């Protein structure tokens, strides 16, 4: 009898736990992505731009620490600071004063370096239009289940980012590249971060869905440098990325920090410039998006002895994830947002201006009156 009850209890427990797991399976896919990619770009060369390389390397360090492997990181560095002749500490790139943190580390795998860092290469990597001979390490092999982190740093202006003193990418080109990525099903969600002067101008033209963007400064603002180091003789980091690195250093793969915390990185009191973000293209609530969804490659692992049937689970997951706004048509890649409306927005209404015909008429009138009054013969008097 006791045996029977024990067996009974055990079986109910098993049943309950298996049901529990089946119920919770939805949250395994809460972010909807199965793999993570990162494209980290430093666009400026020359020794005095040391800080841009350090910026990029510090993000590289963070994403790698949080689990994105080198095979999923496309790192583009326009110059080699570690081996620069002017570097008093060869084979290092420091992010903190007094050599506190060396972001160059032991194993940095630079995929595009020096003069390979061009607008063309960057766009080709994003859109996947690379020549067939390109090795896998230089490709962004993402799919429609990929979360991609794109980090750019360099010298920029209103609406452009300079690449290597010789060319620049405009915000329109960038927005079109992202749209092309979307249409080619190259991402699930995309986080765009840029640390440059007037950085907010770079994301204001975006129109593709599932994009979240951050910038170090608003239009009209300069992004400033940080960590002047006398021994190395240059600024080591830019302010925004410096505080971003500080923030990321506290993140671990299991941390529940969400995007709203990321938006608070580097307030104006620290940054001098005003960091900006844009979430209107993003479908989920930023508060429910973990930082590790983009910066890490975190897989939820739950050990179970049971066989779980996941065939009917898509419905379940949708219900469980529907705490924020309804996630309609997340799977469909067409017409998710009224893209065409955004593209074909009407230009801003200018101040009132008399119609062109009116001005033409006025001139005709003036000329007519003039010729009537003076006649053609007296025309010489006015010169």
């Amino acid at each position, binding site marked *: 009898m006791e045996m029977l009850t024990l067996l009974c209890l055990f079986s109910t427990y098993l049943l309950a736990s298996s049901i529990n797991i089946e119920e919770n399976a939805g949250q395994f896919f809460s972010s909807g992505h199965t793999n993570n990619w990162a494209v980290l770009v430093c666009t400026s060369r020359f020794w005095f731009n040391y800080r841009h390389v350090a910026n990029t390397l510090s993000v590289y360090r963070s994403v790698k620490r949080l689990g994105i492997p080198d095979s999923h990181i496309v790192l583009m560095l326009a110059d080699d600071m570690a081996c620069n*002749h002017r570097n008093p500490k060869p084979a290092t790139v420091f992010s903190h004063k007094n050599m506190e943190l060396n972001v160059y580390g032991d194993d940095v795998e630079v995929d595009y370096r020096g003069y390979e860092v061009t607008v063309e290469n960057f766009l080709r990597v994003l859109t996947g239009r690379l020549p067939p001979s390109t090795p896998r390490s230089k490709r962004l092999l993402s799919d429609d289940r990929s979360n991609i982190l794109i980090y750019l740093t360099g010298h920029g202006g209103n609406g452009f980012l300079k690449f290597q003193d010789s060319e620049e990418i405009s915000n329109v080109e960038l927005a079109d590249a992202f749209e092309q990525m979307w249409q080619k099903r190259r991402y699930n969600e995309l986080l765009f971060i840029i640390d440059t002067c007037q950085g907010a101008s770079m994301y204001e033209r975006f129109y593709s869905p599932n994009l979240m963007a951050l910038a170090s400064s608003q239009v009209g603002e300069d992004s400033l440098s940080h960590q002047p180091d006398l021994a190395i003789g240059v600024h080591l980091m830019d302010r925004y990325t410096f505080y971003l690195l500080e923030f990321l250093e506290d993140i671990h793969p299991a941390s529940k920090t969400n995007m709203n915390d990321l938006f608070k990185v580097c307030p104006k009191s620290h940054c001098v410039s005003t960091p900006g973000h844009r979430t209107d293209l993003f479908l989920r609530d930023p508060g429910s998006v973990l930082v590790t969804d983009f910066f890490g490659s975190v897989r939820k692992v739950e050990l179970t002895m049971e066989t779980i049937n996941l065939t009917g689970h898509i419905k379940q997951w949708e219900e469980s994830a529907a705490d924020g706004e309804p996630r309609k048509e997340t799977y469909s890649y067409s017409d998710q947002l009224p893209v065409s409306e955004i593209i074909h927005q009407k230009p801003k209404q200018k101040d009132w201006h008399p119609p062109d015909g009116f001005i033409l008429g006025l001139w005709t009138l003036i000329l007519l009156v*003039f010729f009537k009054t003076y006649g053609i013969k007296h025309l*010489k008097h006015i010169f």
Partner: protein
Amino acid sequence: MLRQRTHVTSRCGRVMDRRRSSEPRRQDRVTVDNNNMGLLSDPNRRRALLGLLTRLNAPICVVCYMAGVAWFMGLAFEPFTLRTYMSENAMGSTMVEERFPAGERALATGREFAAHKKKTGGMPVDWLVRTMQARGLEVFTQSFSRTLPFPDENKERYMVKGTNVYGILRAPRAPRTEALVLSAPCNPGDENNQAVGLLLGLAQYFRNQIFLAKDVIFLVNEHDLIGMQAWLEGYHHTNTTGMDWSPLQGRGGSIQAALSLELSSDIITSLDLVLEGLNGQLPNLDLANLFYAFCQKIGVLCTIQGKLQRNDWDSVSGYSHAVQTMMLMVMKQASGRPWGDHGLFLRYHIEAATIKGINSFRQYKTDATTIGRLLEGMYRKLNNLLERLHQSYFFYLMPSLSHFVSIGYYMPAFGLLAVILLLRALDLWVQLMTPPPRTEDGVIDIEQSSPGVLSVLTPLVISHLTGVALYMLPVRFQEMAVEHFPVSETEAVVLTAIAVYTAGLALPHNTHRLLAGEGTEQGWRVLKLVAVLYLAVLLGCTALINFSLGFILALTLVPVAAFVTPHVPKVLSAFILVILSPACTLLFSVFFFQELQEMPVSFQDGWVLYLSVISQGILDHVLYGSLVYPLIALLVYPCWLLFWNILFWK
């Protein structure tokens, strides 16, 4: 224009309609069109404009002259100047750590150098080679010799023989494509030993640093500029002045920047920056900015033209101080000679400056370690350069070390003076074009009274021949002069120059009569028109290359050009003309310069100084290729002679 076009088309339309029948009407149309052809092509309006310009010519000229001078004086007023700022991104701020520790040791090396210099009685070549080698440099020597055209009495040299010693510190990790130069002249006597000591100390220090991306060349040159000339010519495989030198055995990369160091005492009170180079060339302003920034950072008093900057720009004394500083720069630049050993680098497009240590009776002293740290900081920043210094200005004036006037601001001062010449030329042109009795067939009258080409060409040729004589004779005929007169060679050259100059005043006037007969009213007008335009072109070109020289010449020659006619009182005008002639300008400049330097001289001393300035000018031309002497002798002086000629036109 719009109206006119509309009118023409409408006329055309009507003409098209009546094409078959209206031949006379079409002719009518043509005349109407001619009358309506814009501002200057309309005879009525043109006449009015010209009338205005001719009537008001003299007042406009006077106003322009005043405005030009006032503009120039306003340049030194601080609110009108710009603050200097570093333009070169690669150098950025002064953010480096200066750790040079060995000032005392450098001074000891300097004393050792002095002892060896005294023992050898010249440049201690062997000791320098050994010492540089001991510091790990690649050491090479270059010997050179040069015979001066005539003895240089200021520096007491005639047959110059010497050796340059230089050591190259190779960049440890970089390709050897670029170099920086630090030089210190080895002067006779007790001068400049500390500079050589500091140079060797810095060499030792830099040897242990791994951040150098450019070769650093440490050069000790003998016989100051002559040695520098030999070394630079050897380095760049050129020979512009016919000097004998042995080819360089070792070279670094292309030289990006150079500093020349002059230091004659163990401690100093201030550092003076000398920028003026050959022919008034200046290094890029960023080099001055760099020096100023590091002086500010390290806390060294720094001066330009030996003048500290003052903060009370709104007071009269503060303003006059700024004017003095700027005038000194203008005078030095106008002289066209290199004011430090750096001056010859500029010819090769190498940004260079001389840093001079000054020890006066100020309380605040700076030791050699601090100067070493300053130089270390500057070299470390120069080391960061990726391109030649080119971001900042090449044409500027500095009323103080922290403020500058760029070419865009000072050129109008010259422009206002140059406009006078053009206005006068216009006036003369109008006078020539409109003969007083205006008849219908005036064309024939003009042709009859127009002067022959010869009457203009003759004075032009003769005055230029006088110029050529002034250029050639002094050096050519020095032996002959020494034989016949009890003077030294140098005096002979200078006095010959003055004699030729004075003879020129007597010789050429009225020469046109020999060939062309009696001079006419039209004749002198044509000659003056040519002379005025000639002067305008000449001064304009000079001011583009060397603003200071152009401006000083314009200041004196433009009034001459403006007022001279054969009808002004002869004696008075001749006197004014001589006073405003180039030679007298130079004489006044000498006195004025001494006055600015707060070392006024008596007339006797001033005259001696004047003679030596002339000899130095000729020497600078022969030795280093300074262009001021040929410019004055071959172009400016003949141009002035034309005006002299006009005054005595008969």
